[in-house]
């Protein structure tokens, strides 16, 4: 068990390191470097939203709002060398501290939004988070200090591939660990049956808020990365449509599946980027892709399963059986 997870971590770091080297020697050019980094950022955003929507079963559509909070907060700290963090801390360390502050502020805002709404059952959260995202956007539009509508410019490009990759790995590990723990099980219980969860001694409001705040924290970090990747941020970068994009990743990957969110984040980012050349046709193709996936795989790419070696073995075994017998409908029982 322990050995297997060590191997897994080894593979994950090897992949990151190889990609990093390829970027360094110039085999992967700047454009693809940018996309790879963006994928890692979206992984953080999608995996964290999955915690609210997939694991805890609450419907939040304001993730871009938390990203905006994190993005602007982190950018303010890296752009103003004297603000709170001593000026002696510069460069990458300052970037990481700024990200942590951005995440924390987003988490605090998440707490304020979640406290009144998460007490309620039903669709209230969706409406509140939708409104919250828009409020943040409008506030930023009117805040001269961060440039208002014209945007906040001159943010240093600290977000390189390796650092964002490591942050994404940390996010996935921390959130998967949380989900696998008793606290995560409590959140899943809320999704499955709120009344039963309550009578089993789970304080539903508390765990909903924990999940919500945790997700807001990582969304804030994703936002901070975005700011230091694009080097300029505008309020419209965090519009309602961005929230929907992230929600799509979660739903497409399979609600409740962390690995599904990762796969979907990679897939959708690549689709979006590769469709750029079609300009306005892009939106139509993108929508069609989504419609077809939802028709043929309504439970999402991975359903609510996690991607794992046993699961992979099972799939391969099924595939092998199918081709051997030449018929699609043979059941698995034959081999057992």
């Amino acid at each position: 068990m322990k050995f297997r997870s060590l191997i897994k971590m080894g593979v994950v770091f090897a992949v990151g390191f190889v990609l990093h080297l390829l970027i360094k020697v110039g085999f992967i050019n700047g454009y693809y470097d940018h996309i790879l980094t963006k994928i890692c950022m979206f992984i953080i955003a999608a995996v964290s939203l999955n915690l609210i929507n997939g694991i805890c079963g609450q419907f939040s559509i304001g993730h871009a709002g938390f990203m905006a909070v994190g993005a602007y907060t982190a950018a303010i700290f890296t752009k103003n060398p004297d603000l709170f963090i001593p000026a002696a801390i510069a460069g990458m360390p300052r970037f990481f501290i700024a990200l942590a502050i951005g995440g924390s502020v987003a988490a605090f805002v998440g707490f304020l939004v979640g406290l009144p709404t998460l007490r309620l059952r039903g669709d209230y959260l969706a409406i509140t988070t939708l409104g919250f995202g828009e409020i943040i956007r409008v506030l930023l539009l009117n805040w001269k200090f961060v440039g208002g509508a014209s945007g906040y410019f001159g943010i240093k490009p600290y977000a390189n591939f390796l650092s964002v990759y490591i942050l994404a790995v940390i996010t996935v590990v921390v959130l998967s660990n949380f989900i696998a723990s008793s606290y995560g099980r409590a959140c899943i219980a809320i999704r499955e049956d709120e009344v039963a969860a309550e009578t089993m001694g789970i304080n539903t409001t508390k765990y909903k808020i924990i999940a919500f705040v945790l997700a807001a924290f990582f969304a804030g970090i994703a936002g901070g990365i975005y700011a230091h990747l694009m080097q300029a941020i505008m309020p419209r970068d965090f519009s309602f449509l961005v929230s929907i994009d992230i929600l799509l990743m979660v739903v497409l990957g399979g609600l409740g599946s962390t690995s599904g969110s990762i796969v979907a984040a990679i897939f959708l980012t690549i689709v979006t980027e590769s469709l750029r050349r079609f300009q306005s046709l892009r939106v139509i193709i993108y929508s069609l892709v989504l419609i077809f996936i939802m028709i043929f795989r309504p439970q999402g790419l991975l359903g609510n399963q996690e991607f794992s070696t046993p699961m992979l073995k099972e799939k391969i075994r099924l595939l092998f059986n199918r081709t051997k017998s030449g018929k699609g409908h043979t059941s698995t029982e034959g081999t057992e």
Partner: protein
Amino acid sequence: MPVLETTDLTIRFGGLTAVLDLNIYLEAGELVGLIGPNGAGKTTVFNMLTGVYKPSAGTINFCGETLCSAQHAMLPSLISMKGIARTFQNIRLFKELSVLDNVKIAFHQHVKYSLATSFFHTGRYAAEEKEIEKKAIELLQLFDLDNKQNEQAKNLPYGEQRRLEIARALATNPKLLLLDEPAASMNPQETQNLMELIRFIREKFDLTILLIEHDMSLVMGVCERIYVLDYGKVIAQGTPAEIRANPKVIEAYLGGENIA
């Protein structure tokens, strides 16, 4: 001192008084039945005892503590921690989860490792998770469900779902167990087994049990005392023999002469 005591417990939904001035008590170790025709308010009583509904008036005392009064009402989760567990009339398992996870979730209130520990799986995490798993499997063994621990709860046969619900309730380590129609749609043989099971868990876990049931063979066979509820009011109480002979009870179930 009784384990559970309600005083003038009342709940109204708009103009409907579902339960009126309910006064019941349970001594430690007792097995008490709560019966009555459909719509008498039995499940509503359970919902008040577990905090799902907030009573309009009256108090609930549990082991010398006030769970609910005119001033305050405890959250269901807190009541569960105080030691009241229940099952549901219309089974409320965590359907998509495995049998084992259903029970593990109920152990959550006894988990000691912190939230921060859960992020990195450090310190006590592994040992404690192992302990939870061991306890959960032991509990499933008692209910003869351990060979199905990895199946999804929704795929179990009905009788086993009922048993799993009881196992899950016991995992919270309760003092008082509320069973809401545990024998619903069971055949006589299954009901017989259930009766033995209820007696067995009462001894083993040192429980006080209040149970709602329509199956009279179960109620009369297993309960020491019975309350009869009709239109939200207790119309009779006593031993099974007394209840059987009580004309009011017969009237509530079969209708009085003036109606017939």
